[in-house]
């Protein structure tokens, strides 16, 4: 886990990691949230709507932004204040996602970093994009 302090982070700094979406992740997310919409649970139903399989919950994809902030940028001292996200393309079981954040702005008064975040699938297509506002906590 990274543990960047506010002063160690410059505008332009980037961090990224990859994760493969599994059926077990979708199942677990469905149990935790109670979202039993068949688009996420029933491959036949999803196919009838024009998708090539069970569609991953958008909020599951977005949940990796928690990891981006809490483990990578800034890591240990992360306090997420807000997240704005857009879901551009569907994500499927087996997709390898690349989750990336870049610092676009800082605020010294509150020790905030502002990230531009993008999540791409294995083909390089942007499936999710957005912004995060994160406070870098002191001891």
């Amino acid at each position, binding site marked *: 886990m990274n543990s960047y302090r506010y002063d160690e982070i410059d505008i332009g700094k980037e961090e990224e990691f990859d994760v493969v979406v599994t059926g077990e992740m979708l199942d677990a997310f469905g149990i935790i949230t109670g979202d039993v919409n068949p688009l996420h649970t029933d491959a036949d139903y999803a196919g009838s709507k024009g998708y090539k399989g069970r569609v991953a919950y958008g909020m599951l994809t977005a949940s990796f932004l928690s990891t981006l902030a809490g483990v990578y940028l800034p890591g240990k001292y992360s306090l997420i*204040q*807000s997240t704005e996200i857009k879901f551009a393309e569907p994500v499927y079981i087996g997709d390898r996602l690349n989750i990336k954040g870049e610092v676009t702005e800082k*605020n*010294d*008064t*509150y020790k*905030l970093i502002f990230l531009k975040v993008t999540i791409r699938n294995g083909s390089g297509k942007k499936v999710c994009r957005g912004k995060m506002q994160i406070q870098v906590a002191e001891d």
Partner: protein
Amino acid sequence: MTREKLFEEITEIFRDVFDDDSLVIVDETNADDIEDWDSLEHINLVVAMEKRFNMKFNIKEVGELKNVGEMADLILSKMA
């Protein structure tokens, strides 16, 4: 900048942060007057004002402000 002009700009910032074009901001306006004015939006207001007026505050001075009028006075004192 005149205080009147400053209030126009502050009002614009409030309307933008709270996404509410009907907000009317006066000297006495404080967090009790705007339902969504919580600690997070307070941070967002201060950050927006720092950007708009190209100045930096410190936590202590913004923590002591009781209303928007005092914020306006602080901004004017930093512009002087």
